[in-house]
């Protein structure tokens, strides 16, 4: 059984290699765009059909964001990024469970290279998402409370203890890059390996409960990524002086 930690390359776009995970991510993106266009065509005040379904999803996400930020205006500012992160991750995760992903491929130099692989089973994708999330947190923090106050959380010379705590905060911000990317990558890649191994041991019937687990894990990981970004944004836009103790 061939399991590759890194996503396999299946082509080139100039100097940039195209991996099978990238191809699946593109398909997920096109899927989301098409769904978006279809559900917002002929918008009705009383939603019906697919517009109704996606209004349910938007309401759920809006409630999740509002519960933490507690301020309608700010929610509207941060909602697009958080909802996009959630929809992108969940579309990638669930698309990676369809039959054909990981099984349809080409034989090259005696090895089997699948044409499609779950989008987030490539550390590059999850690292890109983590970079977007962490950089957005910094930008939102600076935009909300100003550069001086925001950098004052990390570098302040009031007393030696605050200085040390500031350095620790800085390190913890950087460690979020690692934790975001590895949490998502590990969950999805381990799920793929688990399904492959179980299908190898108990064909046809064995993978069924594990598919249920993977559907659940795909949803939870998208939710966790979004909620963690949300909580960190909330912490970044809070001014220390006005924090209630």
């Amino acid at each position, binding site marked *: 059984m061939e*399991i*590759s*930690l890194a996503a396999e390359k299946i082509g080139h776009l100039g100097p940039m290699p195209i991996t099978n995970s990238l191809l699946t991510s593109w398909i997920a993106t096109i899927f989301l765009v098409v769904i978006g266009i279809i559900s917002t065509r002929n918008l009705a005040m009383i939603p019906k059909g697919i517009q109704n379904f996606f209004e349910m999803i938007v309401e759920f996400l809006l409630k*999740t964001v509002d*519960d*933490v930020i507690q301020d309608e205006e700010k929610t509207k500012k941060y909602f697009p990024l958080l909802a996009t992160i959630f929809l992108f991750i969940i579309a990638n995760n669930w698309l990676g469970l369809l039959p054909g992903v990981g099984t349809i491929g080409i034989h090259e130099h005696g090895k089997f290279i699948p044409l499609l692989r779950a989008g987030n089973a490539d550390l590059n994708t999850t690292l890109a998402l983590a970079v977007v999330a962490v950089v957005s947190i910094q930008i939102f923090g600076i935009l909300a409370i100003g550069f001086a106050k925001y950098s004052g959380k990390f570098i302040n010379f009031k007393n030696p203890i605050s200085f040390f705590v500031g350095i620790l905060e800085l390190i913890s911000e950087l460690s979020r890059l690692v*934790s975001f990317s*590895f*949490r998502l*990558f*590990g*969950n999805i*890649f*381990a799920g793929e*390996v688990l399904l492959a191994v179980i299908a190898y041991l108990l064909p046809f019937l064995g993978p069924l409960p594990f598919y249920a687990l993977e559907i659940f894990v795909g949803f*939870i990981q998208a*939710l*966790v990524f979004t*909620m*963690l970004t949300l*909580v960190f944004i909330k912490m970044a836009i809070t001014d220390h002086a006005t924090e209630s103790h």
Partner: protein
Amino acid sequence: MNPESIGSLATAAAIALGAIAPAIAIGMIGAKGVEAIGRNPEAAGKIQGPMILAIAFAEAIAIYALVIALIIKFVQ
């Protein structure tokens, strides 16, 4: 012992030892969360949010251990 058997042992040890603490942690978080909901059923929604977040943090440690195990096994 040849490198291959040490590699297999290392893979097993990495994930086995690395999953002990997160498992205990998630159990404790779940227990406290469910107890809090039992004391105050109306606040169930408010307790659920931070509880899931805390469980995700704890699970991430187990995932780090799993990734190391996978790297040992599949990267020559």
